[in-house]
């Protein structure tokens, strides 16, 4: 039998029992749509999170005080061997270093006239906007100072400006933070949330003043941004060497952003895969459906099979006829599933554009392949049953 003839016979049969074929395929359709949609959402979440984390750029190395960091809290904890502003300053002189941001974080009340607002306070350096890719919306950022004590300037987030100044221009105004007076010289553009910290409800002050304010000895973190002319491996080694020289031992921890992004990426990819696997439980049930209807089909068409055999069809031909039917049914289901998923994606795009859904072509192709494979597997048993029928017995059943 030639392939086109086989196909014609199969489509004829499917067309004849149309309701049954539609329902059999529908099971696979739902399963494939679920798998495709879920992996697309997984992929969407992955790229959303990656964007969120890489907004600071990939060429960041974060240095935290203390070795053997417990629970990621290394910077927050006190330490007998702090990371100092002098360390940060020294790193600024290193080759390939573009920006260095020392970080001290705490919370405090900002007072302006009669108004008070309790917010996050970041002690940073002049490099911060460039290093973290923040833009100043109004005024300017903290000035660079050379080893002298910083001037008491502050830059505030968008929300602090709204809450405290309520329409007035904050530039040049004096505010009070924990008993120290600062002059507002700039406002940061709205940035939104980042891991539970509202970056707009924040004030930025020079790191040395922040250390004084919080009565703290050491920095919580130092971020080093290096030039694209080198890579993170080289830079890590360099920073490590420099700091060991300064401290006499390795009492700090380095986290490179690309390392973190890579591990985050692989975690999220595994999650996407896992979600896809969850969706394929439905495909399994759809496979059970194909097995059931195909087996019923073989039983009902026993005499037809007998006739085919009497007309000279070989076992292989009967086998391939039924296998082709199963594969066709499941592949049709798969294609419809992808179409369904396309419709859902389009709707999501129209009505909820921020919903993270990103169809990933390789996953879709795998899903399609999977649907054909399910048909093949589910079709094997009934097709074998059909091919093993004895033509005389088969004909006699009518």
């Amino acid at each position, binding site marked *: 039998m030639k392939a086109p003839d086989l196909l014609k016979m199969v489509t004829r049969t499917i067309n004849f029992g149309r309701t049954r074929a539609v329902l059999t395929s529908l099971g696979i359709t739902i*399963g494939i749509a679920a798998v495709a949609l879920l992996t697309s959402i997984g992929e969407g979440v992955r790229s959303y999170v990656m964007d969120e984390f890489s907004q600071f750029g990939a060429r960041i190395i974060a240095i935290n005080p203390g070795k053997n960091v417990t629970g990621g809290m290394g910077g927050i904890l006190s330490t*007998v061997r702090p990371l100092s502003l002098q360390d940060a300053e020294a790193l600024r002189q290193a080759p390939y270093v573009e920006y260095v941001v020392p970080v001290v974080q*705490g919370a405090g009340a900002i007072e302006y006239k009669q108004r008070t*607002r309790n917010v996050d306070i970041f002690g940073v350096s002049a490099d911060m906007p460039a290093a973290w890719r923040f833009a100043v919306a109004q005024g300017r950022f903290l000035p660079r100072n050379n080893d002298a004590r910083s001037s008491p300037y502050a830059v505030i987030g968008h929300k602090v400006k709204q809450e405290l100044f309520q329409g007035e221009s904050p530039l040049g105004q004096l505010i009070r933070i924990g008993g120290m007076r600062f002059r507002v010289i700039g406002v940061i553009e709205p940035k939104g949330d980042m891991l539970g910290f509202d970056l707009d409800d924040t004030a930025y002050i020079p790191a040395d003043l922040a250390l004084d304010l919080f*009565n703290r000895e050491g920095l919580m973190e130092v971020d080093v941004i290096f030039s694209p002319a080198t890579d993170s491996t080289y830079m890590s080694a360099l920073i490590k060497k420099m700091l060991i020289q300064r401290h006499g031992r390795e009492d700090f921890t380095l986290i490179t952003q690309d390392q973190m992004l890579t591990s985050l990426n692989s975690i999220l990819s595994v999650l996407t895969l896992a979600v896809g696997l969850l969706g394929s439980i439905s495909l399994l049930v759809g496979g059970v*459906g194909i097995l059931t209807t195909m087996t019923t089909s073989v039983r*009902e068409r026993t005499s037809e099979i007998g006739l085919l055999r009497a007309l000279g069809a070989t076992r292989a031909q009967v086998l391939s006829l039924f296998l082709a039917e199963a594969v066709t049914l499941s592949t049709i289901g798969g294609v419809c599933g992808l179409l369904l998923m396309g419709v859902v994606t389009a709707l999501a795009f129209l009505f909820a554009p921020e919903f993270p859904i990103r169809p990933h072509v390789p996953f879709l192709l795998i899903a399609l392949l999977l649907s054909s494979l399910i048909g093949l597997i589910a079709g094997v048993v009934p097709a074998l049953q059909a091919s093993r029928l004895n033509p005389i017995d088969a004909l006699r059943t009518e």
Partner: protein
Amino acid sequence: MRAMDLARFNFQVMVGHRFRTIMLMIALIIGVAAVNLLTGLGEGARLFVLGEFSFLGKNTLIIMPGKKETTGGMPPITGEAPRDLTLEDMRALTRLSAINRTAPLIAGMAELSYQSRLRESFVVGTTHDFFAIRKLSLLQGRALPPGDPTFADAVCVLGQTLKRELFGPEPALGQWVRAGDRRFRVIGILEGKGVAMGLNFDEAMLIPVASAQMLFNQEGLFRVFAEVRSERELTPTRNAILSIIKERHDGEEDITLITQDALLSSFDEILRTLTLAVGGIAGISLAVAGVLIMNVMLISVSQRTAEIGLLKALGASAATVRRLFLSEALLLAIIGSLIGLLISESLLAAGRLLYNQIPLGSPVWVKVAAVGVAIVTALLFAYLPARKAAALAPVEALTHKQGP
């Protein structure tokens, strides 16, 4: 027709068409088992993770220096604020009668050494009462001594892992450990907690809070814990603490009070949503099972056309015929989902035996919902075939195909 007769009739049909009955059951079993199993896993993971992070009783308040007005964000976890929270502040709280006990916390990293062994480790400055609040138990020796918290006694309690790393199999009690430029005599060893997330006391050294203040050259406390006598008194006590601190801090309310439950609530929320999502995804397979039921039922109707005709000739009404098919689906769904429940419950039970620290198991409402959804789906998808059967004209049905 009586319910019992209906059930017996259905049962005969199901036994008669064993293959398709089994296949439909398998579909339903997979669906229900997947829902129950996955929610059970998710729920177990949620409780396990929460348990790992909840060391404190429900009636313990955590006091942090600093305050934020940002809504919905994180509390000021860094513990840095312009004004320190001091031991005097803490002592002032003990005069509240609703407070059972209080404990301060200073946490830091320091390099510890014993003889030639060096170890960078987590050092906690606290008091005697911390052991009770944090539910730490001792393997050997005793806890930090009670008494005046401002007295910087040179003693320490070691976590089990830390003790092993510094001392190996040798006895540690009575030995002196060096931390920074100070020396501490080991007076106790903590009992290991096994698996632990968050701050792991297995690798920590506990010293009197005043010693920690000196070691880290810092006066301010990182946290203060206050155990309230009962959960009922939580809110009034919270207000009382706020007003005491405000009074002491020149009229400024610059601390944050939080319970551990509140701290973990958003985390809890995320895990709960994830569990539900996973269960829901598994639930899609029930819809597929529904489609299969419909398909098989339609096939069944066309194969049993003659039988339906006969029943109608014998006086079965359309309603009776419809009920015959619907009740078959119902019976199938009930048996299938119960088996699915049984299988998933045994798997979860086996999981609990293997990993006894993870409380695997789905909540009752999920089990009810899984079975309920299976039954409703089965009835919904069986409705069309049942209606088709009921609508068959008796004469056409009888002449359609000859029975035996």
